[in-house]
């Protein structure tokens, strides 16, 4: 399928040929029309429809478009209907239209152009609707504004995901906070408009150590399979296979922290034409995976990210920091986007020199977990009481959940915080990269969540929530 709606210049010859071959079952419907959603949505799910079916559906679409054309160009629509649907020669319609042959030819040419424009408008609108529906599968709006230094990675992943002969299981690996989720999200959004995948499904894991059977049941739930508690594991796998083999799905499973080799065989059975993309902190130790490791940002990308984030969150001193200072932060923190953002968040309460002095105590490369713990504690201690209260309730939101301000305020009911206070605290936490905000305030939908590293910090250091697994 073409990446975008075809251009007028490309589509016009296809429409012209389709009109000319209205009754020619021996001629193929032009490929551009066969690839259009206009036709594909009417063809139902038949894999290889007969050529006569394509022709009939194509004619039906053309007839409906001619009817619509009649509203703006009634004479042109009449000419097209007579010439093609009724299969009349120009001479035969001269008396009825009271136009001479040349006039009819000119008007016919114009009508075909108008018809092409109408069809393209319709195609574009169908594509937009389809794209919107497809992206609903991601269930979360992006939590990032812009990615830095990721263009090449996104392009490479996009190529692999769109390849129809390989890379059925793609894994994006890298340490926590390196941007696996953001890069994968960006990649999927970038290829969605291609409309190759018929469905996108995202599973944001709440437990990272997961067996195949449990994972398949999670996917089955997402797909909406009923009656699965009465089904054996094999039956669930079989039903998923039926679904994923029938049409190309793109299934994203986010949040693995251990080796995923044990999933390779089971997922391979479900793949082709569907594809799986997984994000994991651990590089698989084997298996048929296409592995894309994410490495630390380059000094340039890290500096761009740091300054951009500082500007967006009003840390103007940090935004204007000289290159040497930024280089020093990079030396201490490395090119880990989340860690860099957390450091920016600290810079309103601590002088940059103090932050840097603190960071000299930890060795970045060898002890990334220790560094995060250290930075999180600093961030926690920099928070006011209200912000701490709000942050403590955030594990009430599962990684797949969409909690709005009112919900979070509801959870804070135990501490007597009002809506305005919670809202201010969330803004503060967002600016410090301690909460993620999804969606846009303009369309009335904005919801909040936390990064898995933040969840781990809260769970292990601050507050003891029970697990939600039964």
């Amino acid at each position: 399928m073409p990446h975008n709606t075809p251009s007028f210049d490309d589509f016009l010859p296809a429409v012209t040929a389709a009109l000319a071959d209205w009754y020619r079952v021996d001629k193929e419907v032009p490929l551009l029309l066969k690839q259009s959603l206009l036709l594909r949505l009417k063809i139902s799910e038949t894999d290889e429809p007969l050529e006569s079916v394509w022709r009939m559906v194509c004619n039906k679409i053309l007839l409906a478009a001619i009817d619509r054309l009649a509203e703006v160009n009634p004479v042109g629509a009449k000419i097209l209907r007579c010439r093609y649907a009724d299969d009349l020669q120009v001479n035969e319609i001269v008396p009825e239209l009271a136009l001479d042959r040349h006039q009819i030819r000119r008007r016919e040419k114009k009508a075909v152009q108008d018809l092409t424009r109408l069809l393209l408008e319709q195609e574009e609108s169908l594509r937009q609707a389809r794209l919107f529906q497809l992206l609903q599968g991601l269930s979360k709006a992006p939590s990032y504004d812009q990615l830095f230094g990721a263009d090449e990675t996104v392009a490479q992943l996009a190529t692999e995901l769109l390849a129809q002969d390989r890379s059925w299981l793609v894994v994006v690996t890298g340490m926590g906070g390196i941007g696996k989720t953001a890069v994968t999200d960006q990649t999927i959004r970038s290829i969605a408009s291609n409309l190759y995948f018929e469905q996108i499904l995202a599973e944001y894991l709440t437990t990272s150590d997961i067996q195949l059977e449990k994972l398949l049941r999670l996917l089955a739930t997402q797909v909406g399979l009923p009656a699965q508690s009465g089904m054996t594991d094999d039956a669930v796998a079989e039903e998923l296979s039926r679904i994923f083999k029938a049409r190309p799905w793109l299934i994203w499973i986010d949040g693995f922290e251990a080796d995923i080799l044990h999933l390779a065989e089971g997922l391979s059975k479900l793949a082709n034409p569907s594809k799986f993309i997984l994000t994991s902190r651990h590089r698989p130790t084997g298996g048929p995976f296409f592995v894309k490791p994410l490495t630390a940002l380059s000094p340039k990308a890290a500096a761009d990210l740091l300054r951009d984030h500082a500007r967006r969150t009003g840390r103007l001193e940090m935004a204007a920091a000289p290159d040497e200072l930024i280089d020093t932060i990079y030396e201490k923190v490395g090119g880990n986007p989340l860690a860099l953002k957390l450091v920016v968040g600290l810079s309103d309460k601590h002088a940059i020199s103090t932050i840097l002095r603190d960071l000299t105590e930890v060795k970045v490369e060898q002890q990334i977990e220790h560094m995060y713990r250290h930075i999180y504690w600093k961030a926690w201690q920099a928070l006011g009481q209200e912000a701490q209260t709000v942050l403590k309730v955030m594990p009430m939101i599962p990684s797949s959940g969409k909690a709005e301000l009112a919900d979070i305020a509801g959870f804070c009911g135990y501490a007597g915080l009002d809506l305005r206070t919670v809202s201010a605290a969330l803004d503060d936490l967002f600016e410090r990269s301690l909460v993620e905000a999804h969606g846009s305030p303009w369309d009335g939908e904005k919801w909040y969540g936390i990064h898995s590293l933040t969840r781990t910090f809260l769970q292990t250091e601050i507050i003891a929530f029970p697990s939600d697994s039964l």
Partner: protein
Amino acid sequence: MNHSRQDATPIIAAGLTYWSGWVEQLNRVPTPAFLGKHDLIRHTAKMAVKIRETRQAATELVLLTFPLIEASGHWPEWVSLLETLTSHFDDINQELRPIVLNRLGQLYRMDRRFSEAVAMHHDAFELAVQLAIEGFMQGVILYQLAADYCLLQRFDLAKEYILRAMQFVTHGPRSDMHLGMSSYIRSQIELAAGDVAEATVWLEKSIEVLQRINQPVELARAYTGYGQILMAQGQFDKAIDAYQKSLLELERASSPPEVALAKYNIGCGYMNLEQFEQAEAVFREAAVFMRQQIWIPLIWQVQNTHNLGHVIVKQGRFSEAEAFLRESEAMWMQMGDELGLANCWDSLAEALCKQGRLEEGCRLYRKALALLAKYPDNPQAQAMVAEFSQPYAAFNCEELVD
């Protein structure tokens, strides 16, 4: 940084209170907002059942949310949560225990685990009697048992339990709701037992009550039931009206799978009226709608595709119909439904014969008749044999195939 972690119980308790208020204001209608919050509510409930102090409130939240879970189609995810609650009954007030068992039985029934559903509902009833729980609640459990037995085609027991249930459910909290639903179940029992007149009386009663108390999903189901009765009586126009009303109610709530079914039913109405063009339009709408959903039962998809092919045959576009019928043929085979497959072969045979592909068509008629011969005691199969024999003879298939 040595620091003892705080206890999350007050936060979880606040979450339970918050979600209970939030769910309450939905008045049992699964709005799109509910679909968006469903995960959060379940997450809170799952954590809360792990803590003894919050188990009672968790149970209350689960029971309050249940009608929304059931109507929105999200019930499979709640089975394990209700099962967990049953293993912590010591921490849950007595009067809620039979209700938990009753709801779990409903989930089993929806999961098509009918014998477990019956066992669970019997346990619920016995516990309700043992704890001297009010008669109203006993009645609610009894009508669930009636619904179980109806699905098991044990109409004698279904009728016995619904009669007992209806003595109780008219007095008590939400009595109108339960009267509306038990009347609906009663109508289904009467219909399944072949008493159309009695079924109609109870459906009308159910619709009257559910309309009054504004319960769109239940009302939509009652309209669908009414449509089925009218279809069986050959009143196809009126059946379409009933299905349209069902569709309106379902679109008002958020029950996308059932919207697809309502569209399919409307298509069947037009098909029976031999208004094939309208039927085709609605079946196509249903097909597109089903395709947009993440999950739709295979049986609805195959029936819709089959009927779409059938109405296209009836409009004389045989080669176009063939594509749909071949697709439904594959799905019937996949489902192992031989009566559906035979019916599909009949439509496909007609499409082939009328294209002049007599030999291919006749072979299919013969295959269909051979398949139906496996069901000598099935009235539906025998009716199909009588129906298919006519074109088989008319196309002179006996000679052609030999």
